[in-house]
């Protein structure tokens, strides 16, 4: 590992491009009278001015998004934890390990703490190893009796798989990493949307019956309350039909195409679609979607004057600087 890789803090990340001895020539940060930066905005600008700084912003964005997703409905999860302790449920399908209240609570806390640590961590080598720990923890939560059905952990799992891959490659000399990272996030977001769309390719969803029963009948949420108060029951039922068809069409169209869109357009589309799902369905869904929103935002970090996308389709992992 070169000495540049051991320089970890945000300020240093902007200055290491001067010390980069690899073959890749990268522009250095703009030093001004305000250097070193003290304002948050100038700190972020300084980070974005270097390849590695931009990579770190992307990585930390996904960590904070996923952490927020996991703690978004904390009061509900605390109530759930109390229920798991008070009323264990014994099923042949789940072994004691995967139905234990201690396991689900301990693993959840462990995952949150490690993600917070990874967000803060300034050592590349350490981060590249600890980035795998949330994947392990979330793998347990994805198959635990108490959490397997909560898509919060499925989307967080994908975000942490991306993070584990990305963390091991943060390097000033890899000018294409952010493009490959954005491409991978687009593909993850596409597949997750497609998963929701395919399950709705049914007559019951196309008619609106399923979402009518779940949301429009009695769900206490601003848009459904407003629709019930403003329209007759027959009209509400008809609105449910068109709402459901809109969901199916958007999830299908975006799920099939997002992966192929240019980075910044995909980021904007992904943000809009995922945020709208929660805003127009259920605020609790932000626990599922914040990690995906953060993944989508990575696309905004691809430089406008990014080099040809060819290397992003032929991933090359740079070795350490040649001796």
């Amino acid at each position, binding site marked *: 590992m070169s000495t540049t890789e051991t320089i970890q803090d945000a300020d240093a990340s902007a200055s290491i491009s001067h010390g980069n001895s690899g073959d890749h020539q990268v522009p250095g940060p703009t030093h001004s009278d305000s250097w070193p930066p003290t304002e948050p905005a100038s700190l972020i600008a300084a980070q974005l001015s270097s390849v590695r700084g931009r990579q770190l912003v992307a990585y930390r964005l996904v960590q904070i998004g996923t952490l927020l997703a996991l703690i978004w409905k904390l009061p509900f999860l605390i109530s*759930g934890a109390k229920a798991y302790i*008070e009323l264990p449920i014994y099923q042949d399908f789940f072994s004691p390990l995967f139905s234990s209240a201690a396991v689900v609570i301990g693993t959840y806390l462990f995952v949150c703490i490690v993600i917070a640590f990874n967000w803060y961590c300034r050592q590349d080598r350490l981060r590249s190893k600890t980035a795998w720990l949330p994947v392990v923890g979330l793998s347990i939560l994805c198959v635990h009796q108490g959490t397997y059905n909560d898509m919060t952990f499925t989307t967080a*799992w994908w975000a942490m798989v991306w993070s584990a891959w990305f963390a091991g490659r943060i390097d000033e000399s890899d000018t294409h990493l952010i493009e490959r990272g954005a491409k991978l996030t687009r593909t993850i977001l596409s597949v997750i949307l497609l998963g929701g769309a395919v399950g709705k390719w049914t007559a019951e969803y196309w008619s609106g019956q399923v*979402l009518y029963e779940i949301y429009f009948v009695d769900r206490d949420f601003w848009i459904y309350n407003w629709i019930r108060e403003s329209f007759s029951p027959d009209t509400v039922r008809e609105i449910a039909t068109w709402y459901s068809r809109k969901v199916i069409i958007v999830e299908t169209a975006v799920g099939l195409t997002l992966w192929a869109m240019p980075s910044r357009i995909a980021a904007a589309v992904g943000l809009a679609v995922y945020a709208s799902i929660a805003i127009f369905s259920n605020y609790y869904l932000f626990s599922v979607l914040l990690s995906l929103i953060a993944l989508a935002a990575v696309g905004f970090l691809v430089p406008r004057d990014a080099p040809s996308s060819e290397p992003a389709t032929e991933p090359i992992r740079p070795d350490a600087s040649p001796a």
Partner: protein
Amino acid sequence: MDSQPSLAKPDWLYRVILAVLVGVAVWLIAMPFSPLVQQTTLNRFHLQTESFAAWAIQAPIPAMYSFHNRYRIEAMPWDASPFATPRTGTLNHFPVRITTFATDRLYLKQTDRRLITLRSDYRGRSLTTQWIATPHQDCGFVLTDEVLP
């Protein structure tokens, strides 16, 4: 020797993750047409997969708001009041969660909510399972299930 030092190597992890994503996408797109995929996913939703490992490996496959999942909750026949009527409703996904997830499981303490029938439908294929909650000797409940025809 005139050999050049290797400066770069393929990013295999990147390729593996992309391959898994492509595999998941193919699986999903096959769902409307493949009885195998449909039945496998119905079994996944109702915890009827043959082994826990085969069920667990499907965890990365996203399944938000999928299928028409309905439930009916009622008392066991010997607890039933003549005035009690079953509660029915619709669930977004993984319908068995109505007996296990978070505070939902607390409803099992009520004697009129211990017989749960779940049905999922997808493009003409369906799966119905019945779940019985029996008090455990220490605390909590034992949950047993069977597939209904």
